[in-house]
Each structure stands twice: as C-alpha cells, then as structure tokens.
C-alpha cells in the first residue's frame, strides 16, 4: 500500500480502513516440543483425528501491487484473490481433489512408514485449532491432532510465481494421560517471517508464473499441493521415529 512518509492525520483512518482488506498470514501456533520416542515406546497405535482443515483453497498474492494504491487498492486485490480462490476451489471439485482427504492420506502413510499402526478417528471439530478436550478413544495409545491455517497457491508479489503452500500445526497427545508428547508447526513454501515453524521449500517444478497457468494445467497444480502435504507429513513421520 502507498505509505506517505508523513501522512496527514486525516488520511490515517482511511488508510487503516483500506488496509482492512490485507491478507493475514497466520502461522500455526504450536509450541515446540520434540518427541522422546525412547521414553514412550508404548506408543505404537496412533489415532489420527480428523484434521482441522477446511476444504477452502486460497490463491493469493501476499504483497499485491494493488495494495500500493490508497483506499480501493487493497479491496481490489482482495476481490481478485477471492475470485481466483473460488474458481480454483471449483476446479478442485471437478478434479476430485480434497484438501482434508489429501492431508489425512499423507499423514497416515507417513505414520505407517514410521512404524506405527494408524486408526482414523472421524470427528466434528469445534474449530480449526487444536482440540481443547479429548474424548476417550480406547484401543489407541496416542492421538495425532492437526490443523491447517493456509492451503493453496501463494505468490510473494504480483511479479513472482504462485507456488503450492501448506501451513500445518501438529500435536501428538497420550491417549490416556492427555499429556502432549510432541508439538510443532510446519510451513511448506515459506513467505516472510514464519517464526519457529519448520520450513520446507516448495518444489521448483510446481511454480506457476500466472494464475491462468494453474487453471490451464489442473493435474499439475493439484499434484503440487499433494506433494506439499506429503513433504510435511514425511518430515513429521521422521520426527516421530
């Protein structure tokens, strides 16, 4: 957005209003806690809770050129992003791509690769964050609770490519004592400050210069997202070994 070096006081509230359309870029808030597998060898059977992700897919430019135009610029940028995201979601439905299913499949495969038995636990989540109170799930030793804050294609600016982007928070909880055994955040395709999250670089093969390229090659576009989920799940599996 255009920022005057010394903005007149009258403009400040208007600029604030205009910036209300800016993207909030939220990294999952999972405190760092590594997993002490040697101490928790009784954890063999993990209940994979339905992940806290929506089916929404976003196609966004984090710093769009339009934001430099005062007042209407951010609103225009938000409109463009909303329109693209909506079209991309429609494309996902056509292609049979499900955010939640892709994430669940990737996590299950990675946990099994790490030597665990996995049972899926389907539940209605109260919100997108970690569950506050876990129910009893007999038969499993621990629960893997995950939630996402961003999924889709993000570009750093208007002249930089769109890349597959996934933000995920993950927590492993002892099914009996409810003690947190592991907690961390993962970002695939980091843009800007991602705090203490584990960062994974997006595959170069899935960089799209223009939004229209995403629409023109949907197979490739959704394969890029699948790879993002797999990369995060694989890293999570390694850290739980």
């Amino acid at each position, binding site marked *: 957005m255009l920022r005057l070096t010394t903005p007149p006081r009258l403009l400040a509230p208007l600029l604030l209003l205009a910036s209300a359309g800016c993207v909030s870029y939220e990294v999952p808030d999972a405190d760092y806690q590594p997993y002490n597998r*040697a*101490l928790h060898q009784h954890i063999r059977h993990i209940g994979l809770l339905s992940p806290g992700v929506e089916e929404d897919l976003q196609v966004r430019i984090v710093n769009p050129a339009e934001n430099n135009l005062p007042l209407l610029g951010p609103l225009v940028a938000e409109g463009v992003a909303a329109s693209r995201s909506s079209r991309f979601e429609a494309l996902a439905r056509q292609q049979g791509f499900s955010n939640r299913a892709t994430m669940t499949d990737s996590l299950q495969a990675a946990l099994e690769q790490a030597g665990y038995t996995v049972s899926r636990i389907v539940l209605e989540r109260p919100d997108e964050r970690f569950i506050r109170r876990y129910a009893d799930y007999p038969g499993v030793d621990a629960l893997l609770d995950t939630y996402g804050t961003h999924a889709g294609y993000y570009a750093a600016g208007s002249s930089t490519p769109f890349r597959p982007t996934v933000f995920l928070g993950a927590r492993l909880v002892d099914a009996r004592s409810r003690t947190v055994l592991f907690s961390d955040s993962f970002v695939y*395709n980091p843009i800007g400050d991602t705090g203490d999250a584990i960062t994974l*670089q997006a595959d170069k093969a899935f960089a799209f210069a223009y939004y229209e390229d995403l629409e023109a090659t949907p197979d490739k576009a959704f394969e890029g997202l699948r790879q993002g989920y797999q990369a995060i799940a694989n890293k999570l599996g390694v850290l739980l070994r």
Partner: protein
Amino acid sequence: MTPSRPLTALLAVALLAGCETLPNRADGCLAEFNPRGAKTLKVSWSATWNLRIYEDAPCRRNADGSESSYQILALDEYKRPYYVQALSTTSRDRELFAPVVAVLDGNAKVTRWIPSEKWVYRGDRLTASLFFNAENAQERYLVVMSNPLKVGQTVKQRLQDQERTSLLIASWYGGDDRELDLKLTRYGEVQVRARQDPSVK
C-alpha cells in the same frame, strides 16, 4: 590504596573463574576429543550456550583423515529426562555452520549422534534435538563439530518476503523472490540449550 597480597590473590582467582577457557587448537589436531576444561551444560528453562567454533577451536582428526573443528560441553548430572537442542545460525555472509552433534562417554568415546534426517530448517536456522533418558545417564559430554562431508556444499534457500522500494515521498511495496545459496562451513556459531522433557510429569 594498595590491596594486600591475599586480597589480590582472591580477586585474581575470582576473575579467572569467569574466564575459564575451553580446550583450544594449541593442543593440535588429535584423533581423540579433548574434554579437558569443558563447561557444564545445565538443564534449564532459559539458559542458552552460544558456541563459537572458529579457527582457534579444538580440532579432531577423523578416521578418514578429514578434520573437524569442535566445541565440547560436559553434560549435567542426570536427574530426569531432558533434551538438548542445537541451532546453527546463518551469518550475514550467508554462511551456515555444518553441524554434527555427538555424545561421548566418560572416556570421550562417541556413544551416539543426532542422525542427519532429524535436522530441520526453521527459516535460515538448522536445528535438531536429542533426548537424554535414564539409559543415557553414563554419558558425559556433548560435542558440536563441523561435518567434513558437508563443509563446502551449498544449500539453496528461497527467500520470499516483502520488498520496499523508496520513492521520493513514499514507498512502493511488492514481493521479493530470490534464491540464495547458503554455504555450509567449518566455522560458525551454534546455540545449544538443555531443557527438561515436558512430556514427563
């Protein structure tokens, strides 16, 4: 006023206590780790060691003839499970210390190390953790050393951020997207911290 001799000696001892040096390169590049003078890595909720591994750091000659620079810390007396986290940080010159973290027994022999796949990037920091449980109570030292297999290699990191271009009376904001080569080096700095395992009540 001139201090008395006993008082001078006491002051000198007190000053030296704060300046204890870690083993240094003067001992030459040896086949064994030298834990002499190693300071203790206390398990604490807040303390962090900043290990500086530069030309004056001790050197180890590895079995294949390569050399590693290292720093060594004595482990705290084992009381309950804890973990050690190591963070290798990128310098302004885009150089990143290529770390290996190993654990030694009382005879300065390696008992285990952090496997390479456990290291992760958190932005431009390379980090990993290692747990100490009751079965590791006999371990005595932690070594942070350069990885001769990685030194000299480069790691590509894409930097995507907000870019600000200053104009006459205003600034233009856009997106920055550059690929940087981080050079893995023998010398650099590593933060080390020891924390109690929060999963043990």
